Every structure is written in C-alpha cells, then in structure tokens.
C-alpha cells in the first residue's frame, strides 16, 4: 500500500478541569486559543481539535498548523458561567516529532488553566 498516512502520529488527552471561581465562555475560548497557540509554537505541522464540555454546553476549537500558519476556528455553545468541565484534545503530527508529547500537552493545559485562575 502506498498511502503515506502511517507517517503521522496521533496523541490525545482528556482532562477534568475545575476552576476556583466561575468563568465565562470567553475564558474558555481564551484557554483553547492559548493551547492552540502553544501547539503551533512546537510543531511545523499539526491538526489540533479541542472540546471543552460542561453541563451547560461546549466550546470547540480546531486548527491546522503548517509552515508557520495557524488557521483556526472556535465555536461556543455555552450560555452561563461555569466552574468545571472536561477538556478533550486530539493532535495529529508527523512521526518525525520526538519527545513525550502527551506529558508536554498536560503541562501546557495546566499552565494555561493556572493563568485563567490568576486573571
């Protein structure tokens, strides 16, 4: 078979997030945008999908990073402020990328969550 798609890596993470205080959808959007921004600094090519699910709805973000471009979309279906939810993230990159990507990703998520709580 001559398809080249086995030359790509997938990794994903699902993280329960509880904020100290209630946050609005703009904070969740900012968190998702920051994660996508950090990922774009790490990889020359990546397909990133994120969804933050909570009892009031969801915020979904996705992006394609290639050759220094980061084309992204974000969609919010949350009305009220929330204090917890589940963040699911999936990333497809090239297999040439080394390192423990899942651990790096968890660090990124925790850093950004901390920044939101401080602000």
């Amino acid at each position, binding site marked *: 078979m001559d*398809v080249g*798609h086995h030359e790509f890596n997938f990794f*994903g993470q699902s993280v329960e997030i509880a904020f100290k205080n209630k946050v609005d959808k703009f904070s969740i959007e900012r968190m998702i945008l920051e994660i996508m921004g950090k990922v774009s600094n790490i990889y020359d090519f990546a397909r990133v999908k994120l969804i933050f699910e909570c009892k009031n709805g969801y915020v979904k973000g996705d992006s394609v990073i290639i050759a220094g471009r980061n084309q992204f979309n974000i969609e919010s279906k949350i009305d009220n402020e929330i204090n917890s939810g589940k963040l699911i*993230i*999936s990333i497809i990159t090239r297999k040439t990328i080394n390192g423990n990507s899942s651990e790096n990703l968890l660090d990124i998520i925790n850093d950004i969550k901390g920044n939101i709580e401080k602000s």
Partner: protein
Amino acid sequence: MEIIQVAGFLGSGKTTTILAIARKLVDKGYRVSIIVNEIGDIVIDGKIMEMSGLKVKEVFGGCICCELAINLAQTIKILKDEYKPDIILIEPTGLASPSQIRELIKTLNKMNTKPIITLVDILLINEFLSDEQIREIITRQIRDADILAINKIDIVKNELLLKCEEMLKLLNPSAKLIKISALKNIGIDELITILGV
C-alpha cells in the same frame, strides 16, 4: 441504501460539510446516519454531530481505508440492521484514501456508492501542496474524487479561487468542480443535486 463519502485532508471542513448535507437530507425526509472515523482513540467530531441530533457511529484508532476496513463493514451492517437509514454519510480521516474506501463498500451487499466528494481547503491548499509528504496524500484524495468541492470560499478573493480551480482541473480533469462554504451553507444544495440524492 446509499453511501456518500465526504473525504478531504485534515481541516478541510468535512464535519461541517457533513452536518450541512445531513440537515438538508433530514429536511427532505431521509433517514440519515453518519460514520465518523478518527485516526486516534479520541473522538471529537462524533460528539458534535450527536449534539446536532444525528445518528452517529464512530470508528476510531486507525483508518477505515486500510487497517480498520473490517470495522467499517461491520459498522455499516450494524447501522443497516438497527437504524435502517436511507443514506449513510461517511467521514474518513483526513489522511485516508477515498478510492480504497469505495472499493470496500462496493463489496458489500445492497449498497450504492454515490460519487466521492473530496473537499479542498482553499486557504491552505498551496501550503499543503508545497509539503512533499502532505502533497502525496492530498493529490491522491483529489485524483480519487468524482466531485471536488472547494471549501471556505466565503473568505477568499476570486483570483485565488480561479488559480485553485485551474490547479484542480490539471490534477483531476474528469471531476465535477463546485465551490462551497459549508459554514455559511453556500453551495450545499447544488452539491446535493450533483450527488443525485
């Protein structure tokens, strides 16, 4: 039962396009199911589709054009037996080979494959084709298409669109070319008409 495959590289707008097509078909009175394939073991697009009230089955942890081909056949059978849809929309991974999926479907009983739609992301097609590894995958997806749908046309200038059309005609002269914006619901009716549904 009809099967419609909406292919295209990562980020080309497959989920949005499938949702737009599915809504129109449901409005026309069809029973519609969706099969979503994710290369990894986390499914996000399927969740979004289910939230839209559609019947969705997920095949994950590989690609239905090769290592998970048997799972695709089983999933089609389960949907057929349990839900009896008129139409199944298939979203392969962005790395899949559409013709291989069509060949698999052809081996199944009482399944009619509709023309393959390959979506082309007008915003990133030049970057993708400049990358040797990605170019190989995208070129195959374009050549496998019966319908080439240039997506995201609402946010580009006409000259870029014309260049893209010329390039696609060179890569696959026999495919029907259509311009859409799945997000803005532009061209979806025409796409359904071309599909012959």
